[in-house]
Every structure is written in C-alpha cells, then in structure tokens.
C-alpha cells in the first residue's frame, strides 16, 4: 500500500512534491478498472490533500514514471513538465472544472497561463464564413492582448491557433490526446511549433491512451474542454452543430461562471437550437467584436 504522508518527511521538508513520482502514480491510477476524470476527481475530493502517490504502490509508480519520461524524451522535442494540484504553480482556477484534474502534462511556456486568455472553439468542419469569422475574432482578441486558447482540432481550433501566431500573438493548445500524440496528424507540425514557442497542455494519461482503442479514446476530447473553460476567462463559440463537442465547453463555461460568447451567425442558423438555449442561461450573443470587447476590456 502507499506510504503515508508522514513517511514522506524523512528529509528536512514536510511532504515535498516529487513530480516524477506523481506522474507515475497518476498513470497507475488511470490503469485501474473504471478510471475516469469523474472517478479520479471524486476520489481526490474524498481524500482531501492526498496526492496520486498516496493511492498507489511507490515502486510501480516509479517504474511507470521511468517509462513515461523515457518515452517523452524519445518522442518529444525539448523539455516537458507537469503541474500537480497542490504545487505553487498549479492555477487554483482549474478547480472550477466539473472534474478538476490532479495532474497536467505540458510543453512550452507555462507562464502563458498567467496572461489573460480567451478560448476560441468550434466545429471541425466549418463553413468558409465560419473560418473567416474565427480569423477576425482571433485577430481582434490578439490586438487586445489576449492569449488564444483552443483544442488543436481540425477546423475552427486550427484557424484560431494559426491566426494567433500569424498576428504575433500567444496561444495555448489544450489537447484531447497525450502530449506526444498528434491528432489530427495534419496538425503535428502546428503542435510541435506550439510546444516549442507557445504552450501545449494535456491531461490525457499516456499509458491508458495507448492501451485503449481509438473509439474509447475519443471520450478524452470533451474532457479537455472542461479544462479549457476553467483555464480561460471566456469561451467564444464560432460555429458548432447540434451535437458538437464544443457544446460541452459551452455548458462548462456557464457552470464555471465564465463568460460564454456565441456568434450571431449561429443564432441565425435555423437548424440550430442550442444558441437560444445557452442564451437563456446567460450566454452573450455577439454581433461584432465590440460585444466581446465591452465585457472583457470595458
């Protein structure tokens, strides 16, 4: 069984954090039957102050950490790091997520998390107008100094990241895959660029992902939308269908007390019922950028 917190203070410090050990322990927890973001969040909510290493065998956690670190060093360019709930650099606002994550992997400049940021998200299959709107919105946000956060998916997400870069802005990708997986593969280069010059974050467990089939792994995508909302002060939905994963983020944003902006074009699409529904719950209809600007900049 896991060591008790007391035994961790064998040195001069009370309960210091060994990030590599926690990484391995987090991966072990995910290999348990039935593990999910919900089950893990519940478990940590019950065991207040516990760390992943309190819940698994230390030897196993160390061996797993060794494997993952080795794998990342082989597959990733440059250094990587983690954030653990309980360490100084873990942003408290991530706790606003419905199932807050105990551990995140990242590559790039963590300090971007401390800048004002807005998520620009939407469908993987946007119309040409949708792309143009995403570009326009992103450009205006960058001009106002916001960091652009998105999910590195095909479609609106990619437009948001690329526009942020083209406009000389800063951007953060929150992945629905492990840090060293590329989906879609056409975005591999973009992901590597973001990891090197901006920031790429992933909450997805590496070994669990490797052992599951792709269909099951798709459930990780909407999970990262909850983190994306918690990380940002507002979410802007550019274009999304009735069953889009983007709507997970819309729900989360409202639930977390973040601002939710929906472009007017979505309201005007007669096939869609969700814009009205979210507006009734506090979402803001955006006719032009000023509707966003007024509420974020003043």
């Amino acid at each position, binding site marked *: 069984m896991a060591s008790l917190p007391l035994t961790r203070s064998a040195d*001069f*410090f*009370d309960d210091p954090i060994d990030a590599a050990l926690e990484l391995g322990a987090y991966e072990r927890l995910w290999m348990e039957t039935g593990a999910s973001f919900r089950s893990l969040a519940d478990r940590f909510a019950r065991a207040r102050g516990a760390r992943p290493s309190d819940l698994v065998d230390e030897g196993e956690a160390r061996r797993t950490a060794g494997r993952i670190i080795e794998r990342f060093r082989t597959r990733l360019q440059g250094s990587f*790091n983690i954030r653990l709930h309980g*360490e*100084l650099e873990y942003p408290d606002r991530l706790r606003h997520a419905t199932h807050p994550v105990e551990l995140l992997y990242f590559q790039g400049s963590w*300090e971007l998390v*401390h800048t004002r940021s807005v998520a620009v998200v939407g469908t993987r299959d946007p119309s040409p107008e949708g792309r143009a709107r995403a570009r326009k919105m992103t450009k205006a946000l960058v001009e106002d100094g916001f960091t652009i956060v998105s999910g590195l998916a095909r479609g609106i997400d990619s437009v948001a990241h690329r526009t942020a870069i083209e406009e000389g802005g800063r951007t953060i990708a929150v992945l629905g895959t492990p840090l060293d997986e590329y989906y879609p593969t056409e975005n591999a280069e973009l992901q590597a660029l973001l990891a*090197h010059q901006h920031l790429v974050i992933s909450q997805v467990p590496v070994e669990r992902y490797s052992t599951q089939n792709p269909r099951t792994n798709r459930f990780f995508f909407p999970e990262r939308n909850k983190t994306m909302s918690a990380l940002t002060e507002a979410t802007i939905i550019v274009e999304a269908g009735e069953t889009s994963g983007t709507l997970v983020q819309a729900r989360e944003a409202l639930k977390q007390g973040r601002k939710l902006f929906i472009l007017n074009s979505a309201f005007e699409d007669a096939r869609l019922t969700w814009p009205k529904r979210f507006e009734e719950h506090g979402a803001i209809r955006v006719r032009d950028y000023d509707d966003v600007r007024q509420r974020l900049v003043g």
Partner: protein
Amino acid sequence: MMSDSDWSAKPRVIGEIERGDHYHLEPDDRCLFFGEYTSRAGFDHGDTNQLISNLQKPVSRAGKPDYKYKEWAISTAAAAIRGASAKATRGEVVIVPAPPSKPRGHVEYDDRMERIARLIGPNADARCLLETTAPREQAKRADHRPSIDDLVASMRVNLALLEPLPAGVILLDDVITNGTTFKAAQRLLTPYLRGRKFVGLFLARRVFPPIEWPDV
C-alpha cells in the same frame, strides 16, 4: 494578469523531470523549489516572476515607494519556508543564506536571503556560514556566468559560526539557474559537516523562455 498561485504550497523536488534544466546538478544532489521563474526582461506575468523581481530590487531603491514590494517578497518567502519545513522553523537544521554577490560593507550589499532566513521564526537557526570575500557581477548581468571554481574562489566559510555542528544544512537562495551556487556552497561546506546532509532550497527554479513575444 491572472494571479492565483498559493505560496503556502509545498515545495517540489528537483528530480528526474527537472534536473536537466540545471546543468551542474547531479542525481544525488537534493534541491527543492517553490515556483518556476522565467528570466525574461519586462515579462512579469505570474506570481513567481513578480516575487523574484520584487525580491531582487536593488538596495539603492531603499526608501522609494516600490521598495515595500521587496519587503513583501521577503516576508512571503519566509512564510513559505515556515510552511514547508517544521525542522527549519524549530531550528533543528541550519539555514544558510546564499551569500550575496557583494561583500558586507559594499554599497550594493543585499542581505535579502539572510533576512528571509531570519524571518522564518524565532527558533530558526540562520547562520551566514558562507561569506562573499570578493565582489562578483550579478550573474544575470554578467557577460559570462561564473563557474563553480569562480564562485568557490569568491567565498569563504565562516568557521566561527560552525559550532554547534548542525544536524543538517539547508542552503537558501532565490533562484536556481545552473546550480553553480549550490555546487560551490556544497564544495565549501561539506568538508566541515562530517557527513551531515546538505540540501538546497530555492524560491524558484529558472525555466527557459523559448521565444520572445511582444509584451502586452
């Protein structure tokens, strides 16, 4: 800026993930840190970057309005250490402030690390076991960073303060970059410690800024 980090958090060990960022550190070296610091001129997003930049305000600004932020940084750091080590707070291990770049009496002498160490608590055992004998350029401003040998040559051990022999030593510094100060202090002090543990505690570890962005 978004500020929601918490200085009552536990420190992190420099281990398998972090060690590669600190060139001189070896696997057996025990170093801990609270936050991560990006050395990037003019970019002070994040509590850690702000705390470090406030802490490093030059002493020539004493009495100016912004100097109160340096005082705030000193007390925040002391409180963080108090929360991180009961042994240090009770005086069971000795805290050794990393000596400043200038010797005592120099117009730029900055005793910020000593002041943090003394503010940890009334029972804390803070001792200036290391003293600077020759002024150094502050590492971050120097054209080339000093080597471990350079640092060893610019410091001496204050033998008068060695007794009673501590049960262990924590070297306290604001930022660990390559680990040069830690290794120099280790080389100077361990011959006198008769096998007692020597560890490093840093308010922050330096991480590399990958690229320059326009600051907004």
